[in-house]
């Protein structure tokens, strides 16, 4: 399967090719492939345990695949590369974590959190340049530098903390940003603001973004492309609009039907839903390598044979 050539013309920054990850007998990833392009976001959607976090960790170099290949700007970096290659990768791929509070060191101020990446990846510059850099970073994520700089994590709200986390990731000037459920631990009324911030940052800095979530409704808000995962496999992927409007795989359909839409449940229907859910799960679980094309950029994995 080859992704549709993206409008920017540039090759993928990150490409996963048939990535496998086994933890002993458990196969967390069974042949996962997708690509990340500059200035575009890809949403990775699925229930917990489907393998999306494992993918994120592999891309963030916090874990190594058991099989398959990881390409960075066309270079095969699956195995541990030379020190300078690793350092370059580190500089280029940053992550925003799910828990805004535990992502910040409670012992230090916001200023410290932002000056460290600047110091490590900037050039040895005078003190003033750092102050300037920190102020700019804070402003770019919508925080008031004068007020926020000297605060400790526990003095900030959840939304503010997450903005600081995003600022820290941006301080390194990466080309790839992995956002692992960045809003699931935030209050509902501020989630959209954070997602809008991520979308804006992606556009302005031409970042290749991987947006991981279990909430498929937010995917449309942030990502041009979507990949739906179940039991370690990618079951449906392509243009977000196409996949959400015409879900072809039964699991995607199940997922979409379960999203709360405010309409009352049909009473007496629970047994039917339960049965349907179980059936879809057992149909979607077996491994399959057959891929069907549904649209120009819309693919689904055919159902595998039951074991």
């Amino acid at each position: 399967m080859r992704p549709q050539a993206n409008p920017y013309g540039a090759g993928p920054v990150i490409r996963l090719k048939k990535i496998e990850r086994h933890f002993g007998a458990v196969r967390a990833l069974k042949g996962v492939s997708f690509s990340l392009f500059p200035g575009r976001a890809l949403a990775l959607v699925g229930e917990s345990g489907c393998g999306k976090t494992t993918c994120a960790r592999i891309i963030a170099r916090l874990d190594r695949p058991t099989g398959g290949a990881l390409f960075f700007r066309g270079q095969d970096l699956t195995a541990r590369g030379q020190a300078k290659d690793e350092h370059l990768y580190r500089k280029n791929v940053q992550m925003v974590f799910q828990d805004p509070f535990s992502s910040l060191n409670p012992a230090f101020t916001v200023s410290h959190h932002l000056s460290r990446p600047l110091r490590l990846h900037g050039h040895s510059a005078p003190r003033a340049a750092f102050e300037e850099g920190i102020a700019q970073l804070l402003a770019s994520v919508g925080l008031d530098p004068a007020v926020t700089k000297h605060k400790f994590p526990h003095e900030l709200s959840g939304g503010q903390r997450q903005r600081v986390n995003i600022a820290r990731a941006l301080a390194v000037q990466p080309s790839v940003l992995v956002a692992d459920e960045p809003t699931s631990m935030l209050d509902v009324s501020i989630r959209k603001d954070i997602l809008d911030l991520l979308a804006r940052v992606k556009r302005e800095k031409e970042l290749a973004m991987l947006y991981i979530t279990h909430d498929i409704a937010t995917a449309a808000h942030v990502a041009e492309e979507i990949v739906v995962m179940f039991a370690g496999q990618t079951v449906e992927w392509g243009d977000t609009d196409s996949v959400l409007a015409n879900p072809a795989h039964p699991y995607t359909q199940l997922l979409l039907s379960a999203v709360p839409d405010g309409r009352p449940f049909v009473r007496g229907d629970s047994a039917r839903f339960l049965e349907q859910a179980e059936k879809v799960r057992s149909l979607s679980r077996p491994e399959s390598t057959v891929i069907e094309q549904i649209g120009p950029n819309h693919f689904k994995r055919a159902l595998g044979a039951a074991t």
Partner: protein
Amino acid sequence: MNFALQPILAQKKAVAGLIIIVVLGLMALFAPVIAPGEPAARVGRSHQPPSVEHVMGTTKMGRDVYRQFVWGARTSLAVGFATGIAITILGTAIGLIAGYVGGRTDAVLDLVTNAVLVIPNLPLLILLASFAGTVGPMTIMVIIALTSWPWGARMTRAQTLALRNRDFVTASKMIGEPAWRIIFVEILPNLTPLVGINLVGSIIYALVAQTTLEYLGFGDPLKVSWGTMLYNAQNSSAIMVGAWWDIGAPAAGIALTGLGLALLNFTFDEIANPQLRSGPALTRWFRLTRARNRQLEARR
């Protein structure tokens, strides 16, 4: 680390403990001023009870107990604190490295920790001392330090393991911080309460260990310390002849130091575990709840 000091000062227990330690420390420091003269000098008749002239009485050899107490504090406190600090540094460093690096390093350090843990401190010291004849404060300090760090190392390792999996450590790795910086600059400040507990416990332990050795006669009889005071008092059968001040003074010194440190320890405990904090609000809540429960029962 201003966030660490504030809670200490806010707790009454800590302030009391701090005062005790500071007073004892100042006393030791200003020994030449507040108890001038040679502590070993014979200044009075043997085993005199406390009087205006000799506030804490005299020893069998006619030495001024008060003077011995003040000068002895110098040695005891100095060795106790120095050894306590050494134990804490060793234990914390080993625990941090073992907890953070993991893998083989952790396995090796764990083995070493367990091996040293098994070594019985005092019998080893006694053994070494009986070969050497007498053991000076420096040697005592080194041997106690080298055999007492495992307890702190274990605690630190456990806490480091817990912190290592927190996202901010992963984030530091991702922005490219070197491992040593993550261990000593990012993780260590979060262990301050634990280090505090470790330090206090180690000092008390070192003080008591040192005193015990000297009491058993392995100290240097020419140096005056609370331990040698006890040794001399014991040898002169002070209790049997009723000279309680001879034993009482050094014992009180050790007890007071222990008390001061223990009070400080409560606070570190409370910082480390906020659920133990007994602020005025909590006390008020308990009082109100009890009153209400009584009222409701009465209505039945």
